[in-house]
């Protein structure tokens, strides 16, 4: 069996800028592949080429062993679908948005209605059919966009930062749906993300793109581990720390992650480890919390940035940590750059590679 898609030596230039630099990649039928990398690494370009809406400058694309090009692109586009990072919504109802792909395929009305209903149920937008889609919230629009893609039951689903800038609830609905499509429908999923905690967790395999080249390839944890060991890796990924672990008497490990910071993680480990802390698991407070959580650090906010209805804070506490909180709690605590805060997180929140 040939792989579902294989890319050979893809190059994509935009004028002087080389977005993809000799990328070769195989995507196996039924797998979930994560494409990690910083902004501008070429993730979107790679997905657009795989989706058949952008032509490479050079290189070859094979779909189930058959080379794709020219007229084959239209056929490719009927088998795989891409969900864009910036949500694009047709200026009409939710129903017509979701039905679009089925309508252009000429499916009978009643079949379309059935499928649209199922897709909307999956993304938890039941009963939204007649609403004007552009009047929905950002998170709801992103779910419409996902429903519009999965309703086609594509063989290959390409997702560009599907949960970036979304509130955690919407993000988890989207992750659930993608997992469902992969497990129950056998949909092959390729997801580009710079968030290793959300979709990154779902994937079995990952590549790491940098400056248009694949610099790492393998299992998700292998790729993250190897990237985190490189100097450049640190600055690109949130809350990934490399340190030295020592087991403690409580059945946990104490990890020295540098900068005078020691964190405690579940599981007895000794030696060099890579620790991942999901930003959403870090609690921010102005006073130390009375909590059983093993990790409490004092720091100062160095950056505040919006992420949908939530806010990302970068906190310098010996090392820089990223935390994600709601806008409401940011206002309630009157937090700003320079504010002194406490970071609290459980030992069990830390994932060790």
């Amino acid at each position, binding site marked *: 069996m040939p792989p579902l898609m294989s890319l050979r030596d893809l190059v994509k230039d935009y004028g002087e800028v080389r977005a993809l630099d000799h990328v070769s990649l195989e995507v196996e039928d039924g797998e979930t592949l994560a494409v990690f990398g910083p902004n501008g690494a070429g993730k979107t370009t790679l997905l657009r080429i795989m989706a058949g809406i952008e032509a490479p400058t050079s290189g070859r694309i094979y779909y189930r062993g058959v080379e794709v090009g020219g007229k084959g692109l239209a056929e490719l586009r009927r088998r795989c679908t891409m969900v864009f990072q910036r949500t*694009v919504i047709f200026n009409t109802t939710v129903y017509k948005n979701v039905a679009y792909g089925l309508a252009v395929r000429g499916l009978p009305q009643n079949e379309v209605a059935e499928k649209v209903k199922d897709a909307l149920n999956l993304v938890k937008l039941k009963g939204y059919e007649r609403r004007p889609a552009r009047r929905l919230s950002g998170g709801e629009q992103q779910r419409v966009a996902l429903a519009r893609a999965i309703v086609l039951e594509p063989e290959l689903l390409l997702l560009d930062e599907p949960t970036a800038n979304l509130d955690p609830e919407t993000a988890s609905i989207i992750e659930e749906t993608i997992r469902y499509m992969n497990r129950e429908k056998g949909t092959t999923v390729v997801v580009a993300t710079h968030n290793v905690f959300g979709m990154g967790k779902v994937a079995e395999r990952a590549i790491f793109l940098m400056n248009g080249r694949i610099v790492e390839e393998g299992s998700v944890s292998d790729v993250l581990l190897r990237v985190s060991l490189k100097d450049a890796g640190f600055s690109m990924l949130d809350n990934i720390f490399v340190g030295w672990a020592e087991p403690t008497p409580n059945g946990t490990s104490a990890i020295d992650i540098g900068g005078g910071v020691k964190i405690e993680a579940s599981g007895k480990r000794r030696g060099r480890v890579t620790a991942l802390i999901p930003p959403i698991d870090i609690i921010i407070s102005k006073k130390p919390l009375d909590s059983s959580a093993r990790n409490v650090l004092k720091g100062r906010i160095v950056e505040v940035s919006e992420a949908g209805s939530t806010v990302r804070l970068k906190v310098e506490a010996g090392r820089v940590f990223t935390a994600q909180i709601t806008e409401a709690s940011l206002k309630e605590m009157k937090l700003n750059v320079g504010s002194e805060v406490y970071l609290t997180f459980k030992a069990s929140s830390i994932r060790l590679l």
Partner: protein
Amino acid sequence: MIGEACSRMALDILEGLRRAVELILSGDPSVLDATLRSLYVSGAATFLASILGLPIGMMIGSREFPGRRLLRGFFNALLGIPTVGLGLILYLILSRSGPLGALRMLYTPSAMILGQALLVLPILVSFTANAVENVEREIKDLSKTLGASELQASLTVFREALPSVSLAVIAGFNRALAELGVALMLGGNIAGLTRVLTTTIAMEATRGNIELSIALTIILLSIVFVLSSAANVLKEKLEG
């Protein structure tokens, strides 16, 4: 003094309103004639301009070709062309001794339609180009990745741009309906043949029939208002 003048003007306007209602209710044949001709001439002009302008606008908005920017700049510049200037140029072209004099079009409704069509063409081209350009790339990519053919994707782009395009058509029609220069220079304000609302208003005002002019102006404004409101409702429907 000024207060007196103001109250006189207010009285004139009120009187004009009363006459307008009277004229409309009485079905005065000359007013009806001018109103219907205005609608016909400007409607036909807008129709002609749309047939030409919408495809040109779509092309400028969606395709890269040599001279695209120049063409776009050209139509943008023409947006503000003085109606009387355009009227004069066409007058010279269509007059007996002009290059198209043999067509004998001058002082006919056809000449007015041609003139107004050229007048509103830039509005249709520029607005359509803008509307299409705003949605082109994203909508086209989206349609294609959902399995649409090239043609289906282009149609979707047009449909997404339609609310803005429909406003362009209405704006064009309003400009044609409300302009005087072209109608006067190419039509000549001949009663029963080329007399339209704007030319009648100008003529009656110079004759001192201020109330009648105001009445006609109110009719003109009402048409513009009703059409614009209808366009907005249509736009919302299209966006629904």
